[in-house]
């Protein structure tokens, strides 16, 4: 009888022990997952959506964007910067595996804020080709996300068709980039976003890898500080108007929830 009580106590103690204070000398992983939406509807190729602000309809056929230079902030204020070489991700709706990525070697902690860059910073944009491997490889993952005539990555690529487009093929094409220029100043569409998890925390532990779930609402690419109308601008690439779209796309991202398991 006593033995049972004793063992119960041991077990309950153990239970408490499974959630010890994070030990910053230990490291764990965190998964970040993006889910693309159009307004309140899930994003799907071939589906036609209506923009309530403009009554324009559009059917997306491509959505890609760079999420890079990630930082995590713990509730005690500590900031963890993902090492630069491992901090470039291309979210591509066409490749489901790209919608999720894992960050490793994160000090144990209770994280409640994530920051990232939309686009590719000027430093990396001007590095030798040999230092642009992995998700930045122009002949690999990043194929089609680079302007070879005007050296620089395309940060966000969103294409589809729309009856409102006056292009011959009735398509709309938004290829937004521009890191500020190499020897002369030019447009800068690199944007930084910080998202708080509110009261939630992602508990990173050696043996627990939480998932942070973020939402990207591409409707906000149209509806932001600038009202983008397909009828007026069916194609925006390297042009000053790209800045307006960048100012819109920075607000596409929101925090949804976290899984601690």
């Amino acid at each position, binding site marked *: 009888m006593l033995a049972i009580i004793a063992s119960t106590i041991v077990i309950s103690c153990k239970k408490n022990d499974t959630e010890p204070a994070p030990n910053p000398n230990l490291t764990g992983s965190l998964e970040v997952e993006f889910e693309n939406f159009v307004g309140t509807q899930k994003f799907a190729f071939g589906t036609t959506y209506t923009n309530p602000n403009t009554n324009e309809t559009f059917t997306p056929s491509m959505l890609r964007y760079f999420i890079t230079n990630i930082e995590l902030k713990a509730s005690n204020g500590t900031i963890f910067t993902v090492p630069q070489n491992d901090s470039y991700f291309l979210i591509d709706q066409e490749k489901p595996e790209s919608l999720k990525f894992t960050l490793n070697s994160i000090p144990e902690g209770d994280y409640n804020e994530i920051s990232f860059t939309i686009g590719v910073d000027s430093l990396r944009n*001007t590095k*030798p*080709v*040999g230092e642009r*491997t992995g998700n930045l*490889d*122009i*002949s*690999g993952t990043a*194929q089609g996300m*680079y302007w*070879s*005539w*005007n*050296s620089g990555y395309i940060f966000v690529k969103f294409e589809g068709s729309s009856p409102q487009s006056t292009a011959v093929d009735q398509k709309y094409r938004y290829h937004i980039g521009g890191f500020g*220029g*190499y*020897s*002369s*100043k*030019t*447009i800068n569409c690199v944007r930084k976003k910080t998202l708080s998890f509110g009261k939630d925390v992602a508990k990173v532990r050696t043996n627990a890898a939480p998932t942070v779930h973020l939402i990207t609402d591409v409707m906000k690419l149209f509806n932001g500080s600038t009202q983008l109308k397909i009828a007026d601008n069916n194609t925006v690439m*390297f*042009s*000053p108007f790209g800045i307006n779209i960048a100012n819109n796309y920075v607000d596409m991202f929101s925090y949804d929830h976290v899984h601690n398991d």
Partner: protein
Amino acid sequence: MKYIFYVGILILGACKQQPQEPQIQFQNPSNFPEPHYNLSRNPVTTEGFKLGKMLFFDSILSRDGTISCGSCHIQSSAFTQHGHDLSHGIDDQLTLRNAPPIMNLAWQKEFFWDGGVFDLDLFALAPIEAHNEMDESIANVLNKLRKHPKYPQMFERAFGTSEITLDRFLKALSQFQLMAISANSKYDKYIRNEGVTLTTDELAGLELFKVKCSSCHQGELFTDLSYRNNGMIPQRFKLNGIDTIDTGRERITLNPNDQFKFKVPSLRNVEITRPYMHNGSLRTLEQVLDHYQTGVKDHPTLDPVLKQNGKLGIDLTNDEKKKIIEFLKTLTDEEFLKNPILSEENP
């Protein structure tokens, strides 16, 4: 001081039994400044150069196997597409601009008439992927090379691994292009005191050139590498059926102050790189000099050098124009144009 100067290439005496294998080595001509290209990042080697040369002349780089870099950049014309105002690419489509020479690229900072590419190692991506040039995806090019009977072995020899990556592909192409050095013209031999003299007219032309032209066509490379509007105001035209106007540097900076500015070109080998200007609109050197004398068009971005005291153009007499042309012809470098090491016929 007299010495023999080789165009950056040392032919080292090899054993007599074997055919001589030239050893490739980058050397800075003594009258040139330090190169801008970081050679320590991509040292030119014999095997890297050979690989780069094979790639440069191989139409495997284009979608349908019809066009190589060498189709538009022909050695005997200082690696330009001689006689074409705009270059002809795949399916005989035209390019936006006239092909500039591939020459002394180690000393260039930025590439294209508008400077849109800031690293020679990034350059090849542009013609390969352009729909009106080679129209091929770079990933596909690398895949074709990986399956090729010869290339993996050549990459192995050049880089110590047969794994073909974008980085190695681009570096090999750079190695070939870096060796396209033109520094043995009559002018160079005169400047370096190699026992060559210029005629009185050529010398007079050089002096006139220094006064009238060298503020832009500066130094031993005959360019200050800046972007300027020299009064060649581009017109709208139809390019492959599409209404186009070439705004020059503004395409890259999106700055209206850069409208119609183009990179000041080097004038080395200019005698044989006609037609002239970004759009190939001037056919002869006489027309170029006429342009500077009477053809300069006013525009808010026109270079102030070409509008002094409210007067358009450069003050030139017919005799001065002739002498300047005499001088420009001393910049022709036969050794470069016929250098067997760079020749397609000599793989």
